[in-house]
């Protein structure tokens, strides 16, 4: 693509770095911005840059937050003794949109996969274990993608919890969302109905093994 302005070219190149956006789409977006009022475009770029520089991760659940604690953890209406464990922030958004879950979350930041260089240390597993010891957690719900690595992560956390000295006397209930979702499928692509049903029919981990 030939540009008569390097300003235009730079803008196109930046857009084209985004996932799913090719040069043609990038150009279309930039030309659209060019037609806008300069104030609007300024506002747009400010929102983006503030989002990136000011956003925080919740110290408790590692979800995105405006302050130290995210709005879900801060909400006293939610059952903090019920923790739903997810891979990433997108999964929080997916489950929240089902409006079926009234507990809190823990965002792992991925799943264990030595092949991809991801071990327990790269995830927030340690923090989760501490959290469970400290808080009066009654139930853990694993909402991980139904893959081999998802299973590895569940079993690993379960094993760690089994060996960790627990402060709370009440036994911890550990469940996983039911497999309404095809094996190998991805949570974020599931429709809301399937996800909602899976949450209602969650299963104890020992009945869950993929055989």
């Amino acid at each position, binding site marked *: 693509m030939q540009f008569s302005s390097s300003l235009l070219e730079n803008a196109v190149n930046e857009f084209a770095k985004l996932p799913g956006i090719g040069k043609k789409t990038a150009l279309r977006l930039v030309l659209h911005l060019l037609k806008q009022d300069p104030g609007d475009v300024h506002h747009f770029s400010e929102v983006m840059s503030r989002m990136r520089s000011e956003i925080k991760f919740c110290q408790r659940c590692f979800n995105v937050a405006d302050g130290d604690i995210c709005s879900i953890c801060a909400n006293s209406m939610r059952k903090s003794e019920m923790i739903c464990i997810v891979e990433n922030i997108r999964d929080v958004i997916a489950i929240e949109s089902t409006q079926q879950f009234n507990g809190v979350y823990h965002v792992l930041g991925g799943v264990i996969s030595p092949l991809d260089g991801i071990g327990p240390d790269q995830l927030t597993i340690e923090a989760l274990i501490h959290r469970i010891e400290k808080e009066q957690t009654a139930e853990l719900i694993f909402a991980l993608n139904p893959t081999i690595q998802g299973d590895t992560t569940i*079993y690993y956390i379960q094993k760690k919890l089994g060996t960790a000295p627990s402060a709370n006397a009440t036994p911890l209930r550990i469940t996983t969302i039911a497999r309404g979702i095809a094996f190998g499928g991805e949570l974020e692509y599931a429709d809301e109905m399937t996800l909602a049903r899976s949450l209602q029919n969650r299963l104890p981990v020992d009945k869950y093994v993929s*055989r």
Partner: protein
Amino acid sequence: MLRIESLALLQFKNYSDRVFKTPERVIGICGLNGIGKTNLLDAIHYLCFTKSYFSRQDATSVQQGKTGFRIEGQVVLQDKPEKAVCVLRENGKKEFSINGQAYDKFSQHIGRYPCVVIAPDDASLITGSSEERRKFLDSLLSQLDAGYLQQLIVYTKVLQQRNSLLKSFAETGQKDLSLLEVIDQQLIPAGEYVFNKRKEFLVSFLPAVKHAYLDIARQQEELHLFYESELLRAEFPELLRATRQKDLLSQRTATGPHRDDIEISMGKMLFRNIASQGQRKSLLFALKLAEMDVLQQEKHFPPLLLLDDVFEKLDEERIANLLEKVCIKNEGQVFITDTNKERLTLQLEKLGVAFGMIGL
């Protein structure tokens, strides 16, 4: 019954855009070296196994200078016509569909069109490493049992994770043994499933191979075939425990069904070390004919047979003998390639079966 009625190839290997009508039960394919006979068989292989018989990479099957290919087969399965399509898109993504319904996973298709290939390079099945024989066994069992393929995929993936973990232990100097134990807990049920299926299957399959061999070779030889697996001697969890230190050192998994083999011996010597070329070829045919039989028994209809250049180095009598086995005694559709149109035509005419001939 399973039959391919026609085949349309687009940008597949040396074919830009070709349609082949193949309604007959026996199809001869002839032409000079390099004309595309094997490629045509490989297109059929794609329709049966969603991949090439020869190459792991789909890109090598795309016609040079093009992007993407399409293979479309008009198939009749149990009296019902259906359209099977395998497409490699420009972006390298492969899709496979039956009557427009795309599979989520290609493994779901395996076994729908059972198929046996006999090709010249298959001699490595006899002479090559144990991996070749495992591949043969896995391909056969996967066609018979979708659960087997599922567990084999799980086993292979978990094994890769385990080996990566062992490597990362060595690199970081930190050994998270609880993670290793968790991965072993995932490896064990899948490995045991694979082992038990292989064991159970080979009990009746290996004698059938031996029988077929003696029938083809027409001589009494002391041939022994047996399943070799560490799991025959100890339970898998025990084996893993016993090799753990070794595994941590070598950063690989030293035990498990990924090391299984089918051992073949003549007298007290390994078959592959002492057998003549003719004996090897006879054993290869024996394995494939036994495969054909077992597929037919389990599916209740005969598999497709793809015979590539099988006549090379065989005498007239053996050719006739083999053709009778695969074209008369077997009622499935057969595709046979040969460089010599006259020879092939003559042989098929002698059999007295209706056949089609594709001259390339």
